[in-house]
């Protein structure tokens, strides 16, 4: 599933910018993984009431605190996909990335869990 996401965004940025580096696609895949973790967390919080301690401070401060962790997460994702990128790209071959089926699949995988998680997280104060 994540290999497909990686391949889709690799092809997307190759088409858009002529960028043949796995870096941006790996970063996008890392964010999709975060969406899924957020979805799971929202689901668990909704069902059990369990929640992690929150970062104190304003919105900007919280985001600033999370930046180093995000960078580390991106580096891990890049290192993971860097060695596997050629194999993943070979696996999917030269098929077009922008088909209705592929776009719908990406929306279902990446956007739908985020939307559900957002709906579940709106009640949190």
């Amino acid at each position: 599933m994540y290999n497909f996401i990686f391949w889709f965004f690799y092809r997307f940025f190759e088409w858009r910018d002529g960028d043949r580096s796995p870096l941006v696609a790996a970063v996008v895949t890392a964010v999709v993984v975060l969406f899924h973790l957020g979805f799971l967390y929202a689901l668990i919080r909704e069902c059990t009431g369990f929640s992690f301690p929150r970062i104190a401070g304003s919105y900007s401060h919280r985001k600033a605190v999370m930046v180093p962790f995000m960078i580390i997460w991106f580096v891990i994702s890049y290192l993971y996909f860097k060695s596997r990128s050629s194999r993943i790209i070979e696996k999917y071959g030269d098929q077009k990335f922008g088909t209705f089926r592929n776009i719908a699949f990406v929306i279902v995988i990446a956007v739908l869990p985020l939307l559900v998680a957002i709906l579940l997280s709106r009640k949190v104060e």
Partner: protein
Amino acid sequence: MDKGRFVEPSSSGQVHTPGTHKPSTTTPTAESEPQTQTTTNSPATNKSPLLDNANTAVNGASVVPSTIAMGTEVIKKSATYTDDIARIGQTATRASRILGVGAIGLTAVDGLSNGWKNHHTADAAIGAAQTFLLGSGPVGWGVSLGFFVTDLLVKAYSGKSITEHIFD
């Protein structure tokens, strides 16, 4: 000075052609006298038979090959500069994509852990538009940079971001 000279020697007696400092690429076209390359501007040098045919050779260094070499060097350098500019552009585009995606990730994590507010939706939508819809290049970078700087100024002045002001 002799008339009809194509390139005149400098005060040191040498012809300086930028990019080519190799007087060894000499193809003498004058009489086959023993060539003695001097770096002084002595009268004896100026009266050399080589300099009588100075359209093609100065101080034993042929002008035409050195001119061609100079042109080749200029083309090489400009090609390198073009490559560098393209590389810088691609790096900037890549960096803007990563920053945009990173901003979406940070917004999502903050919203899902602290309760999703309207400004999270706005920030995610703006980040997605900047990352995926705005083209790479000066327009996209300008819009993104303009929004980023304005947001920083608003935060510094009021403690809240633009989207927090508008949507909350």
